[in-house]
């Protein structure tokens, strides 16, 4: 008997191994992009503060 308090998920697709690998690569890409952008802004700020100081 199914648990009445657990909602049933409709249209759920169990990710395949290939899809999970692709998702992991995309996540790493986004993480790398965000990290690079933060570092770039940080270094630019350091330079600008240094110039102003």
């Amino acid at each position, binding site marked *: 008997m199914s648990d009445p308090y657990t909602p049933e998920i409709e249209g759920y697709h169990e990710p395949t191994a290939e899809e999970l690998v692709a998702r992991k690569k995309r996540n790493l890409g986004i993480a790398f992009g965000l990290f690079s952008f933060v570092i*770039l802004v940080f270094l630019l700020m350091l*330079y600008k503060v240094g110039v102003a100081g």
Partner: protein
Amino acid sequence: MDTVRHNTGSLDGLSLAGPGDYYGLMKPRVMSLVVFTAMVGLICAPTSMNPFMAIASILCIAVGAGAAGALNMWYDRDIDAVMSRTKKRPLPAGKVSPSSVLAFGVVMSMVSVLGLSIAANYLAAGLLAFTIFYYFVIYTVWLKRRTPQNIVIGGAAGAFPPMIGWAAAGGGITFESLVLFVIILLWTPPHFWALALYKQGDYGKAGIPMMPNAKGAKSTRLQIFIYALVLAASCAYLATTSLGSSLYIAVAGLLNLTFIVLAFKVWRSHAGDDVMGLDEASLYKVKIGEKAARNLFAYSIIYLFALFGIIAASHLLSGFGV
């Protein structure tokens, strides 16, 4: 019982797209030309820039150009699917979903403009924002499917990068940066129409009013030659500015002479003529003409790299008193 709809964005499951597919959305070959011309603008500006800030600025301009390319692919996904030249792009190939591409393009546009405003100045960032807007709204959405002059007016989007580079270095908007803009603006029509002459079937299939299918191959060939002459004149005009030097005059003269000769060959050829009902000898003439158009298209890419390369080189050498 409660029902939860699990939204994966697609009923077929998760996307199989990797970072490489997103890189492909940024039109890397176009981006390389943008990066190069922006770099030349930055080098030739009368004000110097810290190398780190210069690299950061070029990176932001490259990302902005890539973002505009992604937005263009998002809007043009219907016509890209029917053209042999573009059907393998990530969107028509079904590797990425349209909503992901739109989100990617919008986020990258904002990141690039914000980044350039920090790395360089608000003028350069404003020019980059305007370029993305121009390429996406004015060219892709408005002009591309409406007028055979799409490339002529839309070509301005590709002509802005040296101006952005110049402004990023703190040179503002000057006469020299405007001439660099005009050179790319005048280079764009012969470059794209040479391609359209031997790919007009593709453009016709997609319903894009490129010059050869809208006004005919003969008119396009003549216009290619006229643009080649005007382009040479604008290059000669640059020689009268602070960017002119004897080295520039010699190399640019040779480059433009070759461009004019190739454009003349296209003008006198039968490239792009309708092949329906033609005899074998006439078909052969069309094939020869298409070869001339291919040669001009390939040369036009080398031409732009070489021309901007010599502008930067002669400017750098003048710093050493050469």
